[in-house]
């Protein structure tokens, strides 16, 4: 791929990022994420009381935290463009729709990555207190980032469906919740009583939970990485289809 096709992506991502930081969206997201992550890790999961030199008490909450926070970051991605009419400007520029889709997605992903990077003090803490396996911690961060990317791509898709940010948010939460619950042990244990375990496993394979948990254990299995990447690619591809259908009328 030539550098010429990357430069519009960069320009769009840069504009998008400045949009996140010139409004309270990015700050609110980062602050709330850090507060909630801290609260759940230390108060609910009892990080210190566990006396374990790992971050599972930290990562275990991420699927649930992201469930509400990530759609809040992504909900404006396309709905705002449609509401303001700027989509007409953007898509009449010499830019392909996928460049715009990827540019916007990368910018929102960078916001989440920044929030995640700001949790590094907990890594320092756990290293100070004990001897954790930093490889496992790294895998946890990678899994968390990939999972956030999957949620974001879903939010991008739902935001392309409507000019209303609230609708976009709710749709993204519902879809993400489905991806969580399909592999959430309390749900799968219940399903096993009715359905063939193979079917339940098949459904669970579509869940972010299954793949996030497996990465979190410290094994960066290509299947898990491919799962998250394919959710991202699929959702962004669908975003393109929705945008094109919307323009075609």
């Amino acid at each position, binding site marked *: 791929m030539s550098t010429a096709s990357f430069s519009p992506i960069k320009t769009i991502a840069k504009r998008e990022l400045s949009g996140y930081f010139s409004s309270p969206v990015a700050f609110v997201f980062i602050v709330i994420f850090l507060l909630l992550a801290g609260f759940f890790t230390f108060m609910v999961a009892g990080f210190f009381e566990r006396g374990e030199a790992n971050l599972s008490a930290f990562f275990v909450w991420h699927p649930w935290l992201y469930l509400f926070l990530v759609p809040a970051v992504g909900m404006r991605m396309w709905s705002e463009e449609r509401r*303001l009419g700027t989509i007409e400007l953007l898509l*009449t520029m010499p830019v392909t729709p996928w460049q715009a889709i990827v540019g916007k997605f990368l910018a929102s992903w960078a916001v989440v990555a920044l929030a995640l990077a700001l949790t590094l003090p907990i890594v320092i803490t756990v290293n100070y207190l004990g001897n954790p396996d930093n490889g496992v911690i790294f895998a946890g961060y990678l899994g968390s980032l990939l999972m956030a990317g999957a949620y974001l791509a879903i939010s991008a898709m739902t935001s392309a469906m409507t000019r209303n940010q609230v609708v976009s948010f709710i749709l993204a939460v519902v879809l993400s919740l489905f991806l969580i619950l399909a592999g959430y042990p309390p749900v799968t244990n219940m399903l096993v009583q009715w359905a063939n375990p193979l079917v339940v496993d098949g459904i669970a394979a579509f869940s972010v939970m299954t793949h996030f948990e497996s990465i979190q254990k410290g094994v960066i299995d290509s299947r898990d990485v491919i799962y998250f990447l394919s959710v991202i690619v699929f959702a962004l591809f669908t975003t393109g289809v929705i945008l094109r259908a919307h323009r075609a009328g």
Partner: protein
Amino acid sequence: MINVRNIKKTFGPKIAVNGISFEVEKGEVLGFLGPNGAGKSTTMRMITGFIPPSGGEITIGKFKMNDQPIEAKRLIGYLPENAPSYADMTVLGFLNFAAELRGLQGDARKRAVGRAVEMCFLETVLHQSVETLSKGYRHRTCFAQSIVHDPEVLVLDEPTDGLDPNQKYEVRTLIRRMGEKKAIIFSTHILEEVEAVCSRAIIIDRGKIVANGTPRDLKQRSEHAGAVTLRLLDGSAAAVKGTIDGISSVDRTVVISESPLTVRAYPRKNTSSDDLSRALGEAALRERWQLQELHIEEGRLDEVFRNITLPDTAAAAKEASK
């Protein structure tokens, strides 16, 4: 530069644009007229590649919008209806963004943005965010965006909408000046604008072109075009009307007002307005009328517009009320 061939657009069962064809060359300013909902914006959106046509073909320069959209879009500057812009950006940030997407970098970008800012009189608001601007400034910011890369083709959807009279005048002057070197299409509801700016005008109604010509040509379709109007200081209406009706080149005479006495004479078919005005001048001398004014009507665009588009709109209203 712009070649539109038989384009169509349907939204579900609704036909928005039904077979429109025209061409615009460099050095031409094409005015796009039509009642609301006639398909003006839809046509412009198709020309700029925002929405794909359901049928037909659009060529910009030598690039077909369908096959080489990026190359075609590069040649176009576009001001969409309502002049959208990113509310959270500053004017300068927004123009830099547009210039960068247009592939302008470094010094070239700085120069391009500077030129656009100067042409649109935006110096004083450069560092203000777009959402704090008045409507006129917002409009000009989006307009500046459309000319930042000095495009060969300019598509402007209601470029003077929401501007005050001075700003309207400035924008018109700008369009006329740029029209010398570019191919420009602009839509408007203001008919004087067409006369002031356009070298050619197209009237569309319910998705079809109903008139296409220079503003002069169009005006001549007016029923008053070619008639001669006289204003007299005194004299009786009946006597004057009788005299004029007696002239061989006069088809009919209408008394427009009694005081001051104003009479309009319509020429017979195959009679030129010049001959008619000459005959009327001679009659005035012979009858010793105190002539205050005698002029040939050029016709009025708004009349032509109403005549061409009203019947259809009325029919549509009738259809809707059924």
